[in-house]
């Protein structure tokens, strides 16, 4: 399936875009998504292990399964305040 992943802050700058489309298998887990993103955008590889993944605006665990309808975002370490 094809999913769109939103990118923020340094992830966005490294990718040169505020979202990226990646093809992943059905029943793709969050951990699989990280690998797929690293393959598609090698510039992100160093930062990806430090990023959380949000599914529908909620932090997801590595074994969470993606759905085609999910809003997906990479969340690099936050620095608000």
């Amino acid at each position, binding site marked *: 399936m094809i999913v769109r992943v939103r990118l*923020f*802050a*340094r992830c966005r700058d490294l990718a040169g875009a505020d979202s990226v489309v990646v093809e992943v298998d059905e029943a793709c887990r969050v951990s699989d998504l990280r690998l797929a993103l690293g393959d598609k955008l090698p510039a992100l590889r160093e930062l990806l292990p430090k990023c959380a993944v*949000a599914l529908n*605006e909620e932090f997801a665990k590595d074994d969470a399964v993606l759905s085609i309808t999910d809003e997906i*975002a990479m969340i690099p*370490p*936050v*620095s*608000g305040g």
Partner: protein
Amino acid sequence: MIQLTREPIDYHELTEKVIRPSCGAVVTFLGTVRDLTGDEVTVALDYEAYGSMAEKKMAEIEADTRARWPDGEIAMVHRLGHLNVGEVSVAVAVSCPHRAQAFDACRHAIDRLKELVPIWKKENWADGKTEWVHPGSVATPG
């Protein structure tokens, strides 16, 4: 009450919002743009957010703080965009019956905000370079 804004934060108004007859203490925390990180000179910060998720997480922190300290009010605002040194980036106002609770509740809310809310700052260094602050991933301390 929680809010993201691109306008300067009116922290006086925010503080007034949480005053309650049952509460004898109000604590307001302000985060301001600092000019030095280690030896490096900051001239400005740019803040961006994953807006809808940031608002959701701030609302959860508001609810959690109110559940822990039920008697009182809380108001939190985070500013986005380009902020110069000395400008207020975040304000948290909390009222409680007594001051120890108010300090604890305010500390709890700002600590959770810094830990959980998807907002990021980008340093604008004095030499013209810029750098996103991602604690734990780059050499720059948060």
